[in-house]
């Protein structure tokens, strides 16, 4: 780990100013990703700004009937919050599908949004990586790419976004609240994470001086017709090969509203509104689910070691939609997939 200047921000304005004053500054909260990356010398901040004393730990109702989650709410508190469990069980399930109890206790809502990829090459400063060192190349494309993306890739980067929580947030149309020197703004979750394109070193649309202050959830009315289905190499404590967040609003036997987002397949949580549209207006059933899956994967591209993800994703989408339609969400403790 490189040495750095440690600053403890007492106010949001101090935090923003401290970041604006140093282009090599980083905010820290839970630290479960940043400290790890610093130990590998992947991140080498000159200044680390501790934002954990800021008053961003509340989960508050919004006027619209949703919830505003403070950026510093730990993942475990969020997942077990009664209001989240009652009104946003899909989000609770996605969070509990990720990491371990220890990590969820430390990791924050804002930090989870800003997790960096777990691509092996990104994590190894001994190899080239366009995300870590722009312009050096992407060894994953011709190399070990079993865990890599099948959607939205570029010739510069095929990394995936590792978060489970963010896949749930994508399905729930969350809005990210941020504040920087230019004031406060709100970024829809779909516009928060980026595709790699020719600038894979930029993960999000957050500006350097901006702090995530909260995550807003609009009202949700999916009842028990949801699921978060995560498939991985072991049953717990592993990143997704493919995950699917699905939610359906079923009225009179017909899908009135559908949400479908995937994790483990792209540089960002992969929501597909065209696939959702194929479900709406039809009775829930395997044929329509398969059509939605085909739509999601129409432009999927596999590499030497990850082509299996295309078929895995197709089946996972269908199974997740079946679970959602039946109102039998995937348990995150009993791992049998029904």
């Amino acid at each position, binding site marked *: 780990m490189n040495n750095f200047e440690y600053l403890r921000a007492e106010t949001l304005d101090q935090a923003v100013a*401290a970041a604006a004053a140093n282009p090599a500054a980083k905010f820290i909260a839970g630290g479960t990703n940043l400290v*790890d990356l610093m130990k590998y010398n992947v991140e080498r901040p000159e200044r680390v700004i501790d934002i954990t004393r800021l008053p961003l730990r509340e989960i508050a109702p919004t006027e619209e009937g949703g919830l505003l989650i403070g950026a510093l709410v730990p993942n475990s508190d969020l997942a077990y919050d009664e209001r989240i469990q009652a009104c946003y069980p899909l989000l609770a399930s996605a969070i509990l599908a990720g990491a371990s109890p*220890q990590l969820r206790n430390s990791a924050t809502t804002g930090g989870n949004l800003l997790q960096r990829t777990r691509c092996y090459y990104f994590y190894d400063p001994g190899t080239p990586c366009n995300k870590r060192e722009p312009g050096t190349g992407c060894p994953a494309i011709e190399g070990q790419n079993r865990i890599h993306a099948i959607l939205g890739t570029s010739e510069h980067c095929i990394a995936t976004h590792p978060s489970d929580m963010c896949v749930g947030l994508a399905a729930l149309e969350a809005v990210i609240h941020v504040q920087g020197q230019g004031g406060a703004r709100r970024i829809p979750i779909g516009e928060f994470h980026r595709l790699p394109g020719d600038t894979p070193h930029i993960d999000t649309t957050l500006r350097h001086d901006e702090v995530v202050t909260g995550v807003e959830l609009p009202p949700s009315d999916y009842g028990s017709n949801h699921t978060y289905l995560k498939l991985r190499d072991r049953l717990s404590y592993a990143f997704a090969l493919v995950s699917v967040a699905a939610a359906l609003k079923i009225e009179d036997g017909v899908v009135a509203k559908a949400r479908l987002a995937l994790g483990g397949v792209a540089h960002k949580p992969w929501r597909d509104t065209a696939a959702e549209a194929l479900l709406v207006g039809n009775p829930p059933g395997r044929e329509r689910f398969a059509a939605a899956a085909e739509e999601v994967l129409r432009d999927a591209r596999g590499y030497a070691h990850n082509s299996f993800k295309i078929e895995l994703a197709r089946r996972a989408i269908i199974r997740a939609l079946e679970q959602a339609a039946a109102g039998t969400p995937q348990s995150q403790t009993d791992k049998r997939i029904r």
Partner: protein
Amino acid sequence: MSPSQEASADAAGIPVTLTVNGTTHRLTVQPTAVLLDVLRERLQLTGTKKGCDHGQCGACTVILDGRRVNSCMVLAAMKDGSSVTTIEGLAEDGRLHPMQQAFIEHDAFQCGYCTPGQIMSAVALLEEGRANTVEEIREYMSGNLCRCGAYVNIVAAIQQVLATGRRSATP
């Protein structure tokens, strides 16, 4: 900014007060120091183990302000005023914590390196009160790896303590 900012300009480090197993320590730490290293190297509490040092194995699990965390991923400078319980803080008056006793009775370890982290995690699991079934115990202990593969006996030890309802070394 707070006085800590002024302190950070000082190469000597950042002053922090940590209460570890009930004893208050006033320390000056470097910005790069993680809680695990402070416990082991500054306070000589070597019961907490360094396994992967990257938040993947759980050997360094301690209870920080009432919650289990991976101490290898925590910058000590950020935890001024915090309370920590380590494996050394579980026994009382020479009596083992029921979880420690259960690990012995069930032979829930082989080499023992992951054991302090397993026990701290299991003690926190009792407090959290969310694990009732075997599946739930396994899931909520999944942040603690055991390379010897003592998992079956670890789960049995935790089941026994859950069944007794005891939560501390005090009878």
